[in-house]
């Protein structure tokens, strides 16, 4: 076997082990700490004990959503960076979070969630995100051919319009609604609706599988759009489909878990530093490490000022940012050594 493939296998195994470990950690810590072995004992017994209720009603759903949202946001980020060949692009750059927030703010301000039920929030969030994606897509593919740079700018502009409109709503609404909007925007893995969690989890894994159908075009795009064409890649279709896949995925995540920032930006970069830019390992690697990162961030958010809970977006931003800066300074020292 090629040494490259062996290296990938080791990385993959390592990430799976880390994921299992962080799942166990997340299940065991909280207001009531459980030993690792207790987790299995309690879950197997399945009785009506308090431990069982805490695990099955609170912690397991959180972990499942963490795996799904962390993986999906990170995958979405790595796909968009591949398509745009721009390291600063993340799922929210193109206005997906702005659109979803606008949808949710709309629902809260007009009291839709009290009128119809709480499921209105994710539905409105996703509709908002979808509207933005649709706008960016149609505006930038109007001329038949997609221009990547103008698409990016279109996305950024529409994002500004969406977030400004949301601020307009926030400015004219009551303090109570304002609190609801801000709380939602900060993001959380707390989702009472189990079926939404299942849908997100299934969509996340399905997208990972689908993204692997584009692994060769993504690798070819590393050379640039024109050179990918020279290698026989239909770049227009690839870019369109991957844009839709990545942004719908991010839209679902935002609708379910709110705006959890930085995962889609930091994790793909961290993985690029660790495993290189070959999308064959990068896609699954980013997915798994996104899941790990979000689960661990959730653990910190839940425990650091227990019994209160911090917004998870705060943790992902601070912890993720610091870890990334450390990694980057270490790797630049490393590459300096290599060149010298």
């Amino acid at each position: 076997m090629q040494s490259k493939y062996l290296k990938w296998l080791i990385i993959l195994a390592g990430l799976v082990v880390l994921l299992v470990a962080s799942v166990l950690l997340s299940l065991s810590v909280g207001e009531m700490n459980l030993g690792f072995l207790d987790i299995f004992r309690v879950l197997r017994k399945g009785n009506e004990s308090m431990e069982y209720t805490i695990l099955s009603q609170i912690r397991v759903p959180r972990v499942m959503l963490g795996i799904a949202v962390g993986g999906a946001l990170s995958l979405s980020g790595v796909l968009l960076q591949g398509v745009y060949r721009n390291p600063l692009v993340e799922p929210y750059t193109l206005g997906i979070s702005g659109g979803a927030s606008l949808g949710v703010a709309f629902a809260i301000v007009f009291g839709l969630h009290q009128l119809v039920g709480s499921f209105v929030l994710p539905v409105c969030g996703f509709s908002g995100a979808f509207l933005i994606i649709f706008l960016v897509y149609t505006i930038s593919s109007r001329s038949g051919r997609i221009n990547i740079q103008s698409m990016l700018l279109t996305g950024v502009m529409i994002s500004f319009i969406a977030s400004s409109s949301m601020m307009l709503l926030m400015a004219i609404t009551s303090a109570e609604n304002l609190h609801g909007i801000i709380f939602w925007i900060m993001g959380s893995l707390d989702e009472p609706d189990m079926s939404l969690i299942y849908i997100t989890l299934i969509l996340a894994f399905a997208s990972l599988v689908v993204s692997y159908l584009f692994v060769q075009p993504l690798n070819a795009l590393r050379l640039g759009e024109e050179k990918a064409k020279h290698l026989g890649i239909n770049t227009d279709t690839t870019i369109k489909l991957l844009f839709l896949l990545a942004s719908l995925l991010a839209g679902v995540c935002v609708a379910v878990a709110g705006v959890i920032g930085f995962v889609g930006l930091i994790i793909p970069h961290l993985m690029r530093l660790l495993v290189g830019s070959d999308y064959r390992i990068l896609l699954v690697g980013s997915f798994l490490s996104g899941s790990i990162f979000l689960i661990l961030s959730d653990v910190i958010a839940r425990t650091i000022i227990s019994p209160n809970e911090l917004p998870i977006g705060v943790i992902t931003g601070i912890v993720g940012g610091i870890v990334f800066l450390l990694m980057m300074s270490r790797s630049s020292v490393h590459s300096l050594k290599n060149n010298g």
Partner: protein
Amino acid sequence: MNPDILNIQNLCCGYPKFQLSAINIDIPKGSFAGIIGPNGSGKTTLFRAITGTLSIKSGKILLGDKNLKSLSPRLRAQNIAIVSQFIDAGDMSVEDYVLMGRIPYHSRFSFFESEEDFSIARKYMEMTDTLRFRDQLMSELSGGEQQLAAIARALTQQPELLLLDEPTSHLDITHQVHILNVLQQLNQEMGLSVLMVIHDLNLASEYCDRLILVNQGKIYTQGTPEEVLTFKHIEDVYQTVVVTQANPLSGKPAVFLATSKVLKEIQEKLADKQEK
């Protein structure tokens, strides 16, 4: 069977402000052909039409017997490989970069390169003398070495026709000659047909067996270097005074410049003589 590897008939294509028109070119199999012409004459546009990145308005381009338009992008990439002027492969190892040339042969579901892919890539890295860099990053290589790796990548596509866009620009004379020698060797030993855009008229003359001189969106003239590189053609197209003379070593035409200072001195000398 069409003996031409590339046959362009009445091609018309371009952009709103710049058009190529009435382009007719035949390039026999096994040729080493060069496209020359001033900046903005349409060399790159013609090149982009052949590579398929620019759509054709009228006329057709035949690759052997196949109409280029009817080929899928994948099949086209199996038949034509392109070495672009700028190679931006960044953090990729040289071997990974060269292996990209196998992409036109992979199915959507093939995930790992086969032993065959690796051995083909190694063979062409050896041929271009880049095998020794194979674990290095592309960004660590010099311009000339990157160009060689790009040629190895193109060969790994196992094309019928190799297209190069100014492969020797930005390179010093050692690397220019080295790259062209490698191409010449490939052309003669493997019978690979080569078509390149090249600025340097003397290099074009030494290495190419056919030249196509493009000017103002049209083909000014084409043929052997002796037919194309006459002082009349060059002065007319490039608006520069030159002298052409056979290179004493190869017998191919060589182009010598007459700068305005030299021309002035000659004129003064002539005037002096007349006065005397």
